[in-house]
């Protein structure tokens, strides 16, 4: 009886898992199919081809867009980690005038929806003449309040005696942060890194507003312009472009997966 229950349970789980993963697998498979086979739900094709990728690469500068996306998302992620952890360290572990206000202000930032600041931010970028630059894509995202608060919370739990020991050993605050706190904060740093990277990597609206030059476009932006503008010509090409967009995130997730799940469980943050 027990074994049947178990088989039934795994059966249901397998079906549920399949409903999640199948569309993705189909998308991956479809990028290798010729146009005539798109009607089929099969994952295999007798006439597999790289044509869709070739066409995509020829019609728009996807290579350049990939590099742009990496540059933008990478810079933003590094900045959020470095500057964010410096701020979080100060908020969590240093006594200074106005520290409660800084906490409240950071919390306050979370209450303002991004859409509300979109227009003022755009106006600002136009005013300072940064339209059609990488700076326009990167500058507004260098700090992130959620990341700061998450890191602050984690830093609060690191024992004071480690900071004291480090100070006695002769370290300054920066060195304490990067040689003691960072190695001990891998879970929170990974989750912040992956959220920031994914958020930035998938961002479409802001790049559409501030970048019009094709050679500066990020991958999702170019993909949107390419698909909506009819440049793709076929579903296969569109899906191939989507694959290029998805793969780096999947790779990043695979690398950071263990820390990611650990800290999701630990932080009480729902994905």
């Amino acid at each position, binding site marked *: 009886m027990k074994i049947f229950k178990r088989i039934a349970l795994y059966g249901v789980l397998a079906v549920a898992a399949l409903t999640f993963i199948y569309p993705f697998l189909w998308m991956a498979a479809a990028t290798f199919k010729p146009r005539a086979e798109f009607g089929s739900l099969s994952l295999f094709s007798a006439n597999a081809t790289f044509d869709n990728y070739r066409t995509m690469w020829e019609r728009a500068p996807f290579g350049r867009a990939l590099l742009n996306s990496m540059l933008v998302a990478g810079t933003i992620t590094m900045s959020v980690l470095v500057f964010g952890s410096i701020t979080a360290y100060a908020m969590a572990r240093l006594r200074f005038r106005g520290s409660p206000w800084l906490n409240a202000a950071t919390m306050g930032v979370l209450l303002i929806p991004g859409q509300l600041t979109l227009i003022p931010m755009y106006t600002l970028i136009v005013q300072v003449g940064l339209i059609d630059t990488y700076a326009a894509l990167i500058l507004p995202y260098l700090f992130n309040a959620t990341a700061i608060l998450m890191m602050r919370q984690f830093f609060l739990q690191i024992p004071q005696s480690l900071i004291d*020991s480090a100070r006695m050993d002769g370290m300054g605050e920066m060195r304490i942060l990067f040689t003691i706190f960072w190695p001990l904060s891998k879970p929170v740093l990974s989750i912040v890194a992956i959220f920031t990277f994914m958020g930035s990597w998938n961002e479409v609206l802001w790049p559409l507003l501030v970048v019009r030059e094709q050679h500066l476009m990020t991958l999702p932006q170019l993909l949107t312009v390419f698909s909506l503008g009819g440049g793709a010509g076929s579903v296969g090409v569109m899906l191939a472009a989507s694959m290029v967009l998805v793969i780096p995130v999947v790779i990043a997730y695979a690398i950071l997966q263990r820390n990611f799940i650990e800290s999701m469980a630990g932080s009480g943050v729902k994905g």
Partner: protein
Amino acid sequence: MPSVHFEHVTKRFGATTVVDDFNLDVEDGELLVLVGGSGSGKTTILRMLAGLEEVTEGKIRIDETDVTSLPPRARDVAMVFQDYGLYPHMTVRENLSLGLRLRKVATTEIDRRVTWAADMLRLEPLLDRKPKQLSGGQQQRVAMGRAMVREPLVFLFDEPLSNLDAGLRAQMRIEIGGLQRRLKTTTVYVTHDQVEAMTLGDRIVVLADGKIQQIGRPIDLYRAPVNLFVAGFVGTPPMNFVTGLVASQNGSISFAAEGLNFALLEKRMPSAMPTGAVTMGIRPEDMEVDVIDNGAGPATDSVQGRVVLVERLGGTSHIHFDAGPHRLLAAVQNERLPAVGDAISVRMHSERIHLFVDDERVSSVS
């Protein structure tokens, strides 16, 4: 080795004064213990000396150098923390050597010192392990090693044994004492455990509410406590206290309290004998217990009581007894012990009796 001087040091957190006008000289090579209950300010004093806490008022000197406003790294002191403060992501070797590497000490010299400390503290087999893979006692030794390799001017210990179990604590206490005597480094040691203080300290400073209650050799604190706090704090089991009156009768002087009356040795008492209300204090080991035989009256220097509890600790036994409304404790070496409920006669060694008026000790003999 240098001396350490606190000059009118005060520490306030907001409106709360944690340490109040603290003055102390720690001599060259001395092991000085700061002891007191929680909130007595002992850890704050140590942290101010380490540079981890700012001094609100006053001055701290190490030898002739005023270190009051120097950061920890510029003071050349090393500290062992209560929870050891070992870097969890580094091996024992890295933990030991980090402070030296940051001070740009030559690699060969770092190796020499790490080997020396590891040898002294029996850490060689553990050098490549992470702190998590060590027992509490081993972590404690690594923490000490880390302080030793620095070869600092002053060692600071902040309740280093309080996370260890009783057996290990006794063993580590002996090791710390031995180590300090060998290295002869000036040491300030903070603890709430008076046994640790008594066994380790060359001198002890008893603190309460941020103020020094008494400074002295362990035996001085035990024999001649200056006030009720020190008398009650130093010694295990603690001193018995009874409030009563000193009265002169027929040329002899006696102490009288409800249900308790015995003669005091006149010649031992100071010329200006306190009159009126006093607190009498006597240590449990300064009493002798006898089971009352039928018909035998009590001696003049004895009190009568009834046994309520007998704790047999092996060599020594603790007899809790009621004398009138007072619950007292005697520590005896007797082979034959009274049973619960027995009437006993307890002789007070009057030369060991302490009398306190308004919290201050006015008399005892030693």
